């Protein structure tokens, strides 16, 4: 389904999405719907898979339809395309994993308004060919996911002493006073703040590089 592309250009898109222009610490977009589920690693993985799926396919679809889309209604068209894929995810989850579907609640539906999906469609899909748009969406989704997984892992271990529901030695024992605050909303804000701080510090600035 995806036409082949030159190795080098896929590589460039990958670096761009995973590191140079990472959706979380560089663009700071689309945190809303996913940050809420980062208190459990398993929920985060499911949300991230759903997000990668939606971003990649909707960006590719937008790109396929780009010559038929009038400019002034393109936002509406993009939203509908995104909503279409999110509904697929939602129904699939309800059918095959009802338990996960209830525990994620309305957050699956909120992927529609996740800024990163729309952001990639606007920034890449609307003006470039479908194969590139697919990879761009895919790697941006991945770049987004690994940061959130870092956050989720730390939050779950410190806050509950478990990793994907399995007890972690030491952190689940009586020696470790569980940081309840980590699984509550403020913990998510602090962790995300720390992660953004860390990655922005180790990532050299564009202007410095150019010199």
């Amino acid at each position: 389904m995806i036409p082949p592309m030159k190795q080098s250009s896929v590589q460039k898109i990958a670096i761009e999405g995973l590191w140079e222009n990472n959706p979380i610490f560089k663009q700071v977009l689309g945190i809303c719907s996913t940050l809420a589920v980062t208190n459990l690693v398993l929920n985060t993985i499911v949300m991230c898979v759903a997000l990668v799926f939606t971003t990649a396919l909707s960006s590719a679809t937008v790109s396929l339809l780009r010559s038929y889309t009038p400019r002034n209604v393109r936002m509406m068209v993009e939203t509908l395309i995104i909503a279409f894929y999110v509904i697929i995810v939602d129904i699939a989850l309800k059918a095959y994993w009802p338990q996960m579907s209830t525990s994620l609640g309305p957050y699956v539906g909120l992927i529609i308004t996740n800024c990163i999906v729309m952001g990639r469609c606007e920034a890449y899909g609307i003006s470039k060919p479908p194969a590139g748009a697919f990879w761009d969406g895919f790697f941006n989704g991945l770049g987004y996911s690994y940061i959130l997984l870092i956050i989720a892992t730390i939050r779950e271990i410190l806050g509950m002493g478990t990793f994907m529901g399995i007890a972690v030695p030491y952190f689940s024992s009586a020696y470790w006073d569980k940081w309840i605050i980590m699984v509550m909303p403020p913990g998510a804000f602090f962790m995300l703040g720390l992660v953004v701080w860390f990655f922005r510090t180790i990532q050299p600035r564009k202007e410095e590089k150019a010199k």
Partner: protein
Amino acid sequence: MNVGMELWQALVVCISAIFTQNILLSYFLGLCSFIGVSKQLKTAAGLGAAVVFVMTATCAINWLAYYYILVPLHLEFFRFILFIIIIAAFVQFIEMVIDRYSPVLYQNLGVFLPLITVNCAILGAVLFMLVREYSFIVSIGYGFGSGLGWFLAIMAMAGIRERLANERIPRGLQGPGITLFIAGLMALAFMGFTGVLQGT
């Protein structure tokens, strides 16, 4: 349930949406525009006011659309698309009305309206309203309270960020980083309201 009881429940839900279950600080919704538009008090106030208005109205409209159109037709799975269309159409409509009748208001509020369509807090409030099976009156109270809670949070943040503009902040922490830390502190403060309302 009689009307008096419902009004009382709407009030309780409204207050809890503002303080104990703030849509931004405990559900992380509307975070993108919260970080992007909280640099100045004036713009924050404009966006906040627009959110309060749109959220109250769309909660009401979407409640009617869901229970009177989708449920009788058994098209519940279609809800995401319908809600998004209703929100976008409503925002567009309001923009036209304001532009026509109040140029002053349009200048202050108009630029923020298109931003709202993609504000996840609006769709989020609508989806939460359905999950919790609120009645019509309670839904309006919930929409209004959520909007007001968001307004309160972004105003507080803008006030703090205006003061921060002259402080020396480490490079990696500038902008979004420090905003997230402050949001964390605010979330901690708002957690103090937990337990103020019984039975919500």
